[in-house]
């Protein structure tokens, strides 16, 4: 938990450093990977997630950036990503009435995290365990750990109480631990 808080503080410090900077590339480099990971929780494919991030980021940069000031922009960016994801899902469901579409959740060979310099097998195991979690637990874990949102903020995003969010978070971690220990005992 301390580490997460440290990440948030680092994020805010960086924001203060670049808040006056005019270049969107710095923002995108900093937040793009996390936004893509969050978007992937709400979309069917990687390309959909990229479309959503593009739309959300452009909207944020044009219209909402000044609202954040020196604060942390991630909650607003993630809200924007979620809204774009919902819009896309609505459009897709309309299209699905006309064409048969598979319910794929992850593309073949898709990697959510950077490879580790050493012990990349562990990264693969963690990623695999994360992907096997129920979607509602995985979503909370992603928003908490990589989206750096608080339980209250996640609750606002998902329309849940913070207690429910915290429970899902704990169940998610416990589920991952069980998955990893099972994999260890078999491997």
């Amino acid at each position, binding site marked *: 938990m301390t580490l997460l808080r440290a990440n948030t503080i680092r994020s805010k410090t960086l924001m203060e450093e670049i808040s006056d900077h005019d270049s969107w590339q710095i923002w*995108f480099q900093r937040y793009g990977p996390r936004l893509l990971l969050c978007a992937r929780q709400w979309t069917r494919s990687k390309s959909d997630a990229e479309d959503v991030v593009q739309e959300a980021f452009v909207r944020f940069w*044009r219209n909402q950036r000044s609202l954040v000031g020196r604060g942390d922009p991630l909650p607003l960016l993630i809200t924007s990503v979620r809204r774009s994801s919902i819009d896309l899902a609505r459009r897709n469901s309309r299209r699905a009435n006309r064409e048969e579409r598979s319910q794929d959740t992850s593309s073949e060979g898709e990697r959510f995290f950077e490879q580790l310099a050493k012990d990349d097998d562990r990264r693969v195991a963690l990623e695999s365990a994360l992907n096997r979690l129920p979607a509602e637990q995985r979503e909370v874990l992603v928003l908490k750990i990589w989206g750096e949102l608080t339980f209250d*903020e996640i609750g606002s995003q998902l329309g849940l109480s913070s207690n429910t969010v915290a429970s899902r978070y704990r169940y998610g971690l416990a589920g991952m*631990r069980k998955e990893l220990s099972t994999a260890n005992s078999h491997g």
Partner: protein
Amino acid sequence: MDEDLKDLEEELANLRPAVVQSELRARVARRLDQRLASNLLRVWWTFPAAAALAFGLVLELRRIEPQKSGFSTIASVQGGADSSGAVSRMGNGGRPQVEPAAESANEFKPIEAIDLLCAKSDEGAVTLEDGTLARRTSESHLDTIFWRDPGSGASLYWTVPRDEIRVIPVNFQ
């Protein structure tokens, strides 16, 4: 939370999400550049158009009674049901949604409001003027209201920052 879970949490926090591919960055760059270019092309005629629109809006607002205007409907988003007949309710994702007043003569109608809590802090104990001990908390919100014209399908939204400070009396019973 037990130590095992904390260790796992830290291990996960050390994983870095995969970098965004340069193709996506290029797409974002194109979209932002397009906007700049099209703004420059559009700007020469937008002023008269905006002036005409504003003039029309002023005429329309004069015609509508204040309690039936969109502004009273916005108030209902923040304050719940009001006398104009607009009702706020919790929609999908816990966001309050608004059923606009049926009598509203405006073309654009508020359809959804999002209250995003951006920051929350407990500022500790304070003593009120009457000597009562209280706790002061501060919250920063971003309120976004979406409007839609059912006729044309056009939509717009605005986002407004809001700070909320609460002083809660402490009861030791």
